[in-house]
């Protein structure tokens, strides 16, 4: 058992999260290309939770003088500039130790970003890019816990698979807190905009979100739809139930849900190719 205070200080000590090997290989070729543009880098970064978290962290750091304001990757890149972005990407490290699990988590995160965007567009929400960023970052707490408590976390995932239970319930048993809280801690520590922190914190308890209720409900729903589609791997094989309040808040009709699922299939096939091409 690890006490919460100690856990929080461990998590808050994290300055930078590692990515997966296939991302790093592609990253190097992107940085070394002298003709690479900000928008090329932007679409690359948007498809990786760790790179996205890095960019959002740096642009919201007090140095640039507008902390907690920017939640879009493209806007972040414009304000940081090519030199800073390239330099920042040079320091990215790799997470070999949890390769298998983490690669599945990457796909799950991309799937959730894509699906959040689809639902948000369908419901005519503002700030679609912010939703997509929230989608890709929603499980960032899992990366942090895996990084700091590798053996324990690997053990939890194995147990979740063997006993066919939800990873989040096992997290709570062992750590007293879940990846939702640890993700929110990181977001606070790194000056993320309030909207992102709230969505990360409540994506499993969307009924508790007050200021960004619809956005949180969308990411909650997207998370479950992506699991149900069997795209990627979020640490267990169970599909949690959709929270009825969140379902109401999003307000998808039966036909709209069908359309969302159809669009997901198209987009996920594309992003699947993107992420798996060199495995």
């Amino acid at each position, binding site marked *: 058992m690890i006490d919460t205070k100690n856990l929080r200080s461990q998590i808050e000590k994290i*300055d*930078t999260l590692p990515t997966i090997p296939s991302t790093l290989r592609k990253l190097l070729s992107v940085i070394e290309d002298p003709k690479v543009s*900000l928008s090329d880098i932007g679409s690359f970064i948007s498809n990786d939770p760790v790179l996205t978290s*890095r960019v959002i*962290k*740096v642009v919201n*750091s007090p*140095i*640039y*003088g*507008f902390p907690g*304001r*920017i*939640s879009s990757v493209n*806007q972040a890149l*414009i*304000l*940081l*500039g*090519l*030199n*800073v972005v*390239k*330099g*920042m990407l*040079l*320091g990215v*490290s790799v997470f070999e130790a949890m390769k298998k699990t983490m690669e599945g988590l990457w796909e799950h995160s991309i799937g959730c970003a894509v699906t959040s965007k689809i639902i948000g567009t369908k419901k005519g929400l503002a700030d679609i890019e912010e939703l997509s960023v929230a989608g890709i970052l929603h499980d960032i707490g899992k990366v942090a816990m895996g990084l700091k408590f590798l053996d324990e976390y690997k053990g939890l995932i194995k147990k979740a698979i063997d006993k066919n239970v939800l990873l989040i319930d096992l997290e709570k048993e062992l750590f007293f807190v879940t990846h939702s809280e640890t993700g929110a801690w990181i977001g606070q520590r790194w000056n993320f*905009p309030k909207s992102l922190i709230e969505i990360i914190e409540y994506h499993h308890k969307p009924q508790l979100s007050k*200021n960004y209720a619809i956005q949180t409900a969308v990411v909650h729903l997207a998370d479950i739809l992506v699991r149900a589609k069997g795209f990627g791997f979020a640490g267990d094989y169970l599909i949690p139930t959709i929270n009825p309040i969140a379902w109401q808040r999003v307000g998808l009709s039966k036909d709209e849900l069908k359309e969302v699922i159809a669009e997901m299939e198209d987009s996920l096939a594309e992003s699947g190719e993107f992420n798996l091409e060199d495995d």
Partner: protein
Amino acid sequence: MIKNQNIVLVINDIAISTTINDKLGVFYNINSFKKISNALDSIYNSLPDLIITDFSSDATEISKIISEVKKDPIFGQIPFLVIVEEDYIFCDDNWLIIDDYIRKHDVDKEIQNVVKLCLFRAERVFETNPLSRLPGNITIEKKIQNMIDKGEKFAVAYTDLDYFKPYNDKYGFSRGDQVLRMLGRLVLNFVRQWQPHDSFVGHIGGDDFVFIVSIDIAEKLSQEIIDTFSKIVLTFYDDEDKKKKCIDSVDREGMKKKYPIMGLSIGIAHNQIRNFTHYGEVAELASEMKKYAKLSGGNCYKIDMRKI
């Protein structure tokens, strides 16, 4: 004692690294790294007061990365101290990025003095706008006069925010400054992206920024800056105002009034159809164009097209 200055140390040699940590650790916060690439995250996140590296491991790689870091004006002022072997010979490129050096056998004896000197010197050369870290009036004037004297063709653009005052009144100066810093980054990065060489960005003060680019791109670039600004600026409003797309503030007479979301007006002067002899003419013409843009409702640019 209170340590309020931060040093990033990138040294592969453990003996040297230990010596430096021993000598400086009492006075400064030191972040030690073995490789320069690992230090970048810390540099970009903490804005150190000094970077110390070892040139005996991989001088070319280190120089390349440091000169990239220094291209950004926020990080350009960080002094850069290198430790070199007894027989190391400097080349001209070194002097462009290095602020001082110590030879290995002098580290123990000299590191404290040299570090102090570096830090003091860095404070003295600060001549930029403290808000944006961009060059100020004197540099802007020199730059423009220089181009006139050389007979170069150029466009000078002056920016001005629409409805900045009501924003400042409602949200306070500190939030207003956030918007100005954002605008400074936006202008700088777009200008650099469109014209990496021979372009210039300066900050006169307040919401007045200046950029110099070639005439053929000035209009398109201005339009892109205006468009992007109006997208990003929304995130600087509270959610309620963002939804309403306006704010309640008071006018100069103290009356309550509704004001629209901020926009950007840009005035452009250039020497395609007329010649300048003095900086003052450029400034006057660009300001005139800026006022014209504002009178046209703002959120647009105006370029001088009048025949002489």
